[in-house]
């Protein structure tokens, strides 16, 4: 199965969406300016580069007998994202397409160099230190953008180190946990109904948990903190199969959350908005309330692409892109997006179960879980299922760091599907 047919759908949807936007501009007699969409030929080269890279990557995938389902799913998400960005912030479309090309190039390189990159799994403690270093960088040199101090500004580009830190964290957890799996499942102490190993074996895990809480508090980056913490807990659970860790982590998180609620204003604000957004719908809760209105307006089939009013939501092109999609294309499109993520996750887990090497299996399952968890956190945030935390919807939202790091994750996932053929 080569699945070339599936790959035409993302391109088709992108072209459809763009023509709708151009037709709408023509209907309204709008001129091409800097704030609207530019002439089509500006975007064509990048589109061609992306198509070319897609063909190259899919050929590599087929030749190496990797999983051919993963790339079409991702490109579908990317094309929905691009179309929606073109609709919401036309100025940013060019940047996003450039980032897409860079990300696909990086993905290609990672797939080619995978045997070398895989060796990183042999150095768990270096990875751990690297992860702490990367996450610590914004604490020292960080710049505050959009309320959280987790950006590094390097000349013209601003980066979010935590986006790349999460990949290193994944490597660290995979190699550390597969080495220590036996020790971690040794029940040494029994505490109530929990069975815990000696403290020195879980110390690195507690460090990671503590780090997440630190990010939560100092960098005001709630989304990444939740993501990191969730990752650590889920990876531990996947490798040991012991529910004690999950309970322990929940308790830890509960205490940390309660303490930060009591001590820090921004945490309290987020939490109060979540409990009752209607207390202050035009002030603090404006974003969430507008997002709920948008989702509600969309209904089952949406208001029609280009005919909603998602512009009322602040930051709609990054964190709230899901609300915009649901408003304009309806619940149907939202569900289809979620199904795409779920199918990707399923594909990842299915591949991971076939791998024999414990650390690689963990790494692959971790990649799949990370994408799904990130999707869950942000969609739950914009639909007010969980307190809102600002992270990007992987592959869909605007954002260079997020795009590149998501494509690196994807490259890892793809490369790891190979091993199952050798069995």
């Amino acid at each position: 199965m080569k699945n070339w047919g599936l790959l035409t759908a993302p391109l088709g949807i992108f072209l459809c969406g763009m023509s709708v936007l151009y037709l709408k501009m023509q209907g309204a007699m709008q001129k091409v300016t800097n704030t609207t969409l530019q002439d089509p030929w500006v975007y064509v080269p990048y589109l061609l580069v992306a198509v070319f890279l897609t063909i190259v990557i899919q050929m590599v995938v087929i030749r190496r007998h990797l999983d051919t389902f993963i790339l079409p799913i991702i490109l579908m998400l990317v094309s929905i994202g691009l179309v929606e960005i073109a609709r919401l912030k036309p100025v940013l479309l060019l940047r996003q397409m450039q980032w897409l090309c860079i990300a696909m190039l990086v993905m290609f390189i990672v797939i080619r160099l995978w045997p070398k990159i895989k060796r990183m799994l042999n150095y768990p403690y270096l990875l751990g230190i690297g992860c702490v270093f990367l996450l610590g960088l914004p604490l020292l040199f960080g710049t505050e953008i959009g309320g959280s101090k987790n950006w590094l500004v390097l000349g013209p580009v601003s980066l979010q180190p935590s986006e790349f830190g999460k990949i290193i964290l994944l490597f660290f957890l995979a190699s550390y946990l597969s080495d220590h799996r036996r020790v971690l499942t040794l029940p040494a102490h029994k505490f109530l109904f929990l069975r815990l190993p000696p403290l020195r074996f879980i110390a690195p895990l507690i460090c990671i948990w503590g780090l997440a809480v630190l990010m939560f508090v100092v960098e005001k980056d709630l989304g990444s903190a939740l993501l990191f913490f969730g990752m650590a807990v889920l990876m531990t659970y996947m490798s040991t199969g012991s529910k004690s860790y999950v309970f322990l982590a929940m308790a830890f998180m509960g205490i940390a959350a309660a303490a930060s609620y009591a001590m820090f204003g921004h945490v309290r604000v987020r939490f109060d908005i979540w409990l009752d957004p209607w207390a202050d719908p035009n002030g603090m809760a404006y974003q969430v309330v507008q997002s709920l209105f948008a989702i509600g307006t969309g209904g089952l089939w949406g208001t029609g692409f280009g005919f909603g009013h998602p512009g009322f939501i602040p930051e709609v092109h990054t964190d709230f892109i899901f609300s915009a999609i649901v408003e304009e294309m309806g619940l149907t499109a939202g569900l289809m997006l979620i199904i795409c993520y779920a199918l990707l996750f399923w594909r990842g887990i299915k591949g991971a179960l076939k791998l024999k090497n414990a650390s690689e299996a963990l790494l692959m399952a971790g990649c799949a879980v990370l994408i799904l968890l990130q999707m869950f956190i942000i969609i739950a945030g914009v639909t007010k299922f969980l307190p809102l935390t600002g992270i990007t919807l992987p592959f869909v939202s605007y954002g260079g760091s997020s795009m590149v790091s998501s494509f690196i994750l994807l490259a890892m996932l793809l490369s790891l599907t190979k091993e199952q053929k050798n069995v």
Partner: protein
Amino acid sequence: MQGAAMAIKVVRVVLEYGMLLWLIYFTVSLSRRMFGEVKQELKQQHKPVVKQNEALLTVVEAGEEELQGRRFAFQEEITIGRGAENDVRIPENFVSHRHATIFLHGAQYVIEDLGSVNHTYVNGQPLEGRAYLKPGDEIRVGMVTLRFER
């Protein structure tokens, strides 16, 4: 002019909803292909199970002459240990009296360590409690290595 504007509008609406329908079609065909693949895999997995319901333990490596090259065929259960009542008797000090057992559970064979002192190893990993056996797994008890086949 009126007609042209109308035509543009119609094309636009068609494209808008075409986009959405294309997305739905993509997701549905994707999931159908994936489930189809899983179904095929399941069929392939089922075939060998129905054909054979006998398993075989082959001695790969043993210090004792009476065990070398022997094969033990069984259907329901086989026990391994030092005691005389075992099906596979290994007269070594490292082996417990009743060391391990392999039994049929559903369509698969399960190996269980019966609380041995020196552990049972499956493919070089110490066995904790029970585990499903795959054809070709190597089981080590004391100094004896057995290969599980079916």
